[in-house]
C-alpha cells in the first residue's frame, strides 16, 4: 500500500501534492498496491473531498488543531501514528519546504532513510527503482530500496504533471483518523509568516531573460552580461550562488528558492544547471546555454548551446546583436 502525504494551505491542496498523487498512481500501476492519501492539517475536510475524486483507494483525514500552523514536531508525531496504524509499504511526499523539514525525521524514527527529490520510477528485475539527480544534476542515479517496509520517498517539483491525475470512477471513501497530539510536546513555536520588502523585480513577466551563474567568476565582470541584456531588451537574472555571494540581489534569483519564470527566451550564461535552477526556468520557450563544460546539465534542457568561454562568447553576442 502506498501512503501519500498531501499538504494543503488555507483549504486548498497544493499543486505539488497532486504531482505526488500522480507519481503514486504510476507506482500503483507497477505493483506497489492501492493508494491511500492522508490530508494533514486543521479543518481539512474540504480538501479531502477534493482528493476523493482522484483514483485512490481511500482518503484519510488527519485533522487536529495543533497541526496549524505547521511544526516539524507536530507533523512527525501525527504522521508517525498514521504510518504505524496503516503499515504502508511506501510513504510518498511532495517536494515542499515542509517535506524538507520533517520527512527525514519521520523516516529516521522508523530506522529508514528518505529517498529525496525523485524525478521518476523504473521497474527493474529486482523491483522498483527510484530515479534521482546526484552531483548537482551531472548524473542521475537509480536507487533501490531494500530491507523492511515502510520506505520513504519524496518527488521533485514538476517531475510529474498535476493535471495528469487519474480520476476515479466513483468517489473514494473518506475516513477520519484519530491521533493523540499534545501541544506541550511541540518544541517549535512559529510566528506568523511574512514577506520581505516588496520585490523590486518581477521576472515572471519578462519576455527575455539573461541569467548568469558561477561562470562569471566575480562581481566586477557582471557588466559583460548586463550589456548583453541591454542589447536584447532582457532582464538580468541569476542562479542562487550569485545571489548568495551578494553579487546580485535575491530578487534576481531564478530557481526553487527564487522565482519561476517562463519567458520566450532564456539565456543561461555560465550556469551549470543544478536541478534547483532548472525547475525555475525549464518552462521557457527557447533556452540558450553558454558554458565551458560540454557536460554541464544545463545543456539537457537547452535548445541552443555554445560550448566556450563566456568572456569571449557573450561580448561577441552583444556585438552580433548590434550588427
Amino acid at each position, binding site marked *: 500500500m502506498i501512503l501519500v502525504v498531501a499538504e494543503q494551505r488555507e483549504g486548498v491542496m497544493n499543486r505539488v501534492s497532486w504531482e505526488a498523487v500522480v507519481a503514486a498512481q504510476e507506482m500503483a500501476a507497477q505493483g506497489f498496491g492501492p493508494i491511500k492519501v492522508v490530508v494533514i492539517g486543521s479543518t481539512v475536510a474540504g480538501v479531502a473531498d477534493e482528493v476523493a475524486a482522484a483514483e485512490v483507494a481511500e482518503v484519510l483525514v488527519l485533522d487536529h488543531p495543533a497541526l496549524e500552523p505547521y511544526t516539524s514536531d507536530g507533523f512527525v508525531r501525527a504522521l508517525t501514528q498514521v504510518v504505524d496504524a496503516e503499515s504502508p509499504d511506501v510513504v510518498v511526499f511532495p517536494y515542499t519546504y515542509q517535506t524538507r523539514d520533517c520527512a527525514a525525521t519521520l*523516516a529516521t524514527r522508523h530506522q529508514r532513510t528518505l529517498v529525496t527529490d525523485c524525478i521518476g520510477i523504473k521497474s*527493474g528485475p529486482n523491483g522498483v527503482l527510484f530515479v534521482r539527480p546526484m*552531483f548537482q544534476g551531472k548524473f*542521475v*542515479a537509480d536507487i533501490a530500496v531494500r530491507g523492511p517496509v515502510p520506505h520513504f520517498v519524496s518527488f521533485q517539483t514538476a517531475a510529474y504533471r498535476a493535471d495528469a491525475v487519474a480520476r476515479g470512477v466513483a468517489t473514494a471513501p473518506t475516513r477520519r483518523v484519530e491521533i493523540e497530539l499534545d501541544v506541550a510536546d511541540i518544541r517549535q513555536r512559529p510566528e506568523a509568516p511574512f514577506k520581505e520588502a516588496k520585490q523590486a523585480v518581477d521576472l515572471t513577466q519578462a519576455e527575455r531573460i539573461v541569467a548568469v551563474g558561477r561562470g562569471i567568476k566575480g562581481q566586477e565582470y557582471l557588466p559583460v552580461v548586463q550589456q548583453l541584456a541591454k542589447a536584447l531588451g532582457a532582464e538580468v537574472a541569476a542562479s542562487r550562488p550569485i545571489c548568495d555571494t551578494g553579487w546580485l540581489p535575491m530578487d534576481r534569483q531564478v530557481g526553487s528558492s527564487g522565482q519561476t519564470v517562463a519567458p520566450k*527566451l532564456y539565456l543561461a550564461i555560465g550556469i551549470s544547471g543544478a536541478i534547483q535552477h532548472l525547475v525555475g526556468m525549464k518552462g521557457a*520557450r527557447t533556452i540558450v546555454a553558454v558554458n565551458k563544460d560540454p557536460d554541464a546539465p544545463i545543456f539537457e534542457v537547452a535548445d541552443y548551446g*555554445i560550448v566556450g568561454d563566456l568572456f569571449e562568447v557573450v561580448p561577441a553576442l552583444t556585438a552580433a546583436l548590434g550588427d
Partner: protein
Amino acid sequence: MKIAVCVKQVVTRDWPLRVDETGQWVRDRDASFEMNEPDAYALEEALRLKEQHGGEVVVCSAGPPRVSQVLREALARGADRAIHVESDVLATADTLTVGKALADALRVEAPDLVLTGLQSDDQGFGQTGVVVAELLKIAHSTIIMEVQISGEGHIRVKRELEGGWFQWVVMPTPSLLTIQSGINQLRYATLKGIMAAKKKEVRKVEPEVTTGESSQVVVDLYVPEKDKKTRFIEGSSTEAARELVRALREDVRVF
C-alpha cells in the same frame, strides 16, 4: 555557548567527474576535494555567533582520512577544535549511517547548538542535519536565514519558506539548524589562521558502522538522458554568436 558544525568534504566543483568502473559512484580517487559549500555557510554562522556571544566552535566531519583537509580548513577559518569520525565506508554511505556516526560523536560533546549546511553538493539528499537532530533527540529547524540568541535556553530563527515568504520560529536549546546558503558572507582563512590551526586539536573517533543494513542503494549512476535535442553551434566565438543571433531572429523569432 558550545556550537558544533557538521561539514562534509566533496569533490571540487569544477573537477571533471566520470562514473567509475562499478557504475555506482564517481571516479574520485585522484580528484581534488573541498568543503561542501552549504556547510561553509553553517561554519561561518557558527563563527559569527561565537564572536557575538562567546563560547566554542567544534567542527565535525565523517569520512576517510582525506577528510582531515576540510577540518584543517575549518580550524584555519576560526573553529576551536575538530572531531574526525574516520571510516572509509562513510564516503559513500547512506544518510542514516552517516547521521548515526555524526550523532554518536556529538552526543558526548552535548553542544547547545548544532549547525549543518542545507544539503551536500554530491549526493544532495538534504537530510543529514535533520537525521542527526532526531538521533540526538533535539529539536530542529531547517533552511535558516538568521539566528538570534534570544535568551537563556532559547533561540529565535528565521526560516525561508516558499515563494518569498519567511517565518520566525522560537525553539529551545539544544537544537539543530540547517543553514541556507547566502545567510552570510564567507570569510577565508588568513595566514595567521592557517598557522594557528596547526596547534589546534583534531580528535579522531572510530564509528561503529554497519553497512549491510542500508535501506537504499545506488544500483546505477549515469549521465542523464536529454529532454531536448540541443543544437550545438560550433565555430569561433564571433561565428557562433552571429549564427545564434540569426537562428533566434529567423528560426524561433524570439525578437
